[in-house]
């Protein structure tokens, strides 16, 4: 028996591919990442907002995805097509058995949005680096300007899973009380009440201010701790329970253009396991749509009163 055990153990050691054991199913710590950088199963992807951030210093082995060309359709407003996404992932060396870690600047906003696109196309083993670039840099961990050359991968992605994505018709149904779904608006209180149409300096805006009827306002920042990491599941539960979001009914998250809401989508669906869809049309679609109800408590009028 002993011999059999030994053989089995040896066999297991020899023939099991190096397994990336992540501390959580959906998040990895900076510490874990640094220790696992050389793991051949790991594929690291940076999705940052600012240009030149990746090139001037990224985590060793990371490849760069540009949110505004790689992950979207550059002509119509939509996420990238299945074919282009599969091609992108293969070029980035992603295999069917890869463990993918995504990170980025600005508190992982676009990294979380990337994670949502990965999820829509059914890619497994996708995790966020908790705290993103901000924490990695704050901890003075190493960065390199050398781009990563990778061998092409073999991943096959699934058809888009629209159950993760809310469309205008879905939120209009909630606004008209025809759907029992909770809406979480993660924009700033001033955008929510309608005092402003959009934060200063942004290009994309809507010609109506306010929010979708039935939405509660939980700015995205309430989901993160001081160091940029997600709050613990217990704390997150408390934050959202305080406004009646407890996971008992389906949830839709939205923001202005759909990217910061992915951050909250990630917290609610991945960390808390709730049933959540991200409305990527967000306020720039809803606030521009014709004939749908809006709540504007601030009374701001487009073009002036």
């Amino acid at each position, binding site marked *: 028996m002993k011999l059999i055990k030994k053989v089995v153990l040896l066999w297991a050691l020899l023939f099991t591919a190096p397994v990336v054991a992540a501390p959580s199913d959906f998040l990895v710590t900076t510490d874990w990442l640094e220790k696992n950088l050389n793991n051949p199963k790991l594929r690291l992807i940076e999705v940052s907002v600012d*240009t*030149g951030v*990746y*090139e*001037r210093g990224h985590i060793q082995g990371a490849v760069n995805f540009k949110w505004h060309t790689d992950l979207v359709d550059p002509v119509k407003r939509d996420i990238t097509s299945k074919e282009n996404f599969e091609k992108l992932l293969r070029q980035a060396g992603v295999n069917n058995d890869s463990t993918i870690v995504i990170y980025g600047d600005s508190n992982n906003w676009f990294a979380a949005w990337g994670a949502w696109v990965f999820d829509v196309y059914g890619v497994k083993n996708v995790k966020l680096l908790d705290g993103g670039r901000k924490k990695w840099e704050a901890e003075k961990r190493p960065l390199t*300007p*050398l*781009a990563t*050359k990778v061998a092409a991968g073999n991943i096959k992605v699934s058809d888009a899973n629209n159950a993760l994505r809310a469309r205008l018709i879905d939120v209009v149904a909630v606004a008209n009380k025809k759907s029992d779904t909770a809406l979480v608006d993660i924009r700033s209180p001033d955008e929510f009440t309608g005092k402003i149409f959009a934060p200063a*300096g942004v290009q994309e805006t809507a010609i109506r201010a306010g929010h979708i009827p039935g939405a509660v306002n939980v700015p995205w920042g309430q989901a993160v701790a001081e160091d940029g990491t997600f709050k613990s599941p217990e704390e997150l539960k408390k934050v959202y329970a305080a406004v009646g979001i407890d996971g008992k009914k389906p949830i839709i998250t939205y923001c202005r253009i759909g990217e910061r809401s992915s951050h909250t989508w990630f917290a609610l669906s991945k960390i808390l396991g709730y049933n959540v869809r991200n409305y990527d049309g967000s306020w720039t679609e809803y606030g521009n749509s014709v004939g749908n109800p809006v709540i504007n408590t601030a009374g701001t009028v487009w073009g002036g009163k």
Partner: protein
Amino acid sequence: MAKVNYQINSSIPAFKNFLGIVVILIIAFILNSQIENLQGGTALSLSLWLGISFGAVLQRSRFCFYCLSRDFIEIKNAKGLFGIIVALIIGTLGYHLIFGAFLIDPIAPRLPPNAHIAPVSWVLVLGSFSFGLGMAIAGSCISAQLYRLGEGLLSALIAFIGIILGFVLAFLSWNFLYLEAIQQAPLIWFPHYLGYKGSIVLQITLLIFLALLLLKFHKKQKEINKTQKWWQIKWPTYVGGILVALIATVAFLRVSPLGVTAEIGSIARTSAGYFNILPARLEGLDTLRGCLTIVKETFWSNNGLFIFGLLLGSFALATFSGDFKIQIPKIKESVRSFVGGILMGFGSMIALGCTVGTLLSGIMAASLSGWIFLIFCGAGLYLGWFLRKKYKLN
């Protein structure tokens, strides 16, 4: 500038020579302690120190595009322009070294981040020509106005008023120019067509050809015997060229390509904004590459610190070498500086940079736009020089 045979005197500079350097270092260290903990503090701090180094190098090696060109036109001394070619050759190598790290395969439409690869259209031709004409009329380009201001040349202040006005005029024409030409204009980056190796070969061949051409026209200069102390002697322009290329390479690697007009333009855009004289939207401006002007949101910016550093560095070495001298402009010179400034401001705004941002950083980046700027800025400069001579405007 005739050839000077120096007799090097090995004495030590007097205490007062060091005063400027000491004061500037104190200011720089205090400023550095204020900015390094801000968001993006590393880039801010690097910009300051790179600016100081750039100013010091420009001052010591008299790296003034107009003065060097005039030496060539008037007395057939090609050594100065040769220094610029040295900068471009070494910068080309430095840039391509970094391109290989940033972007392994130069496959279109991918471009290296923030490299000054500007759209090629008649607007670039117009901007380059206007800039060249302006720098000849004003007596030096924008970077040289800056380092000469550090030497005490007060007419530079008048030039800057003109430059800001030129920027405002360019903003007012921007939407027309953008929609008429820039929006459809191609970005031509040699590595897309030739790969990195081919791009290096093409660039260096062109630059060596230019150097040989200069050599053909170069005339041996009259020799003057002169005694100067070692700290008074100007560095040869090729030494300046080598150092400029190193600063340009480091700046591209760590912060962004060299340029001196982004901050000036931002100041122009922000202040013009207060008077509500600009169009509400400058179409497409924020999506282009080059010395772009943004509306100022934070007091300290990378480019602002770079320019401030340039002034500090030039002042420090000008006082050290005894070049510092307050020069109050006469009326004629003031008018020239002002008019030249307007032409330079207008030209550098629509060409998305000047002799530093579009010529140096553009050619080093193997962008066709840099070469176009070189040709038409040169043509404008020649016309300006000719007009000055003909109408005795000096």
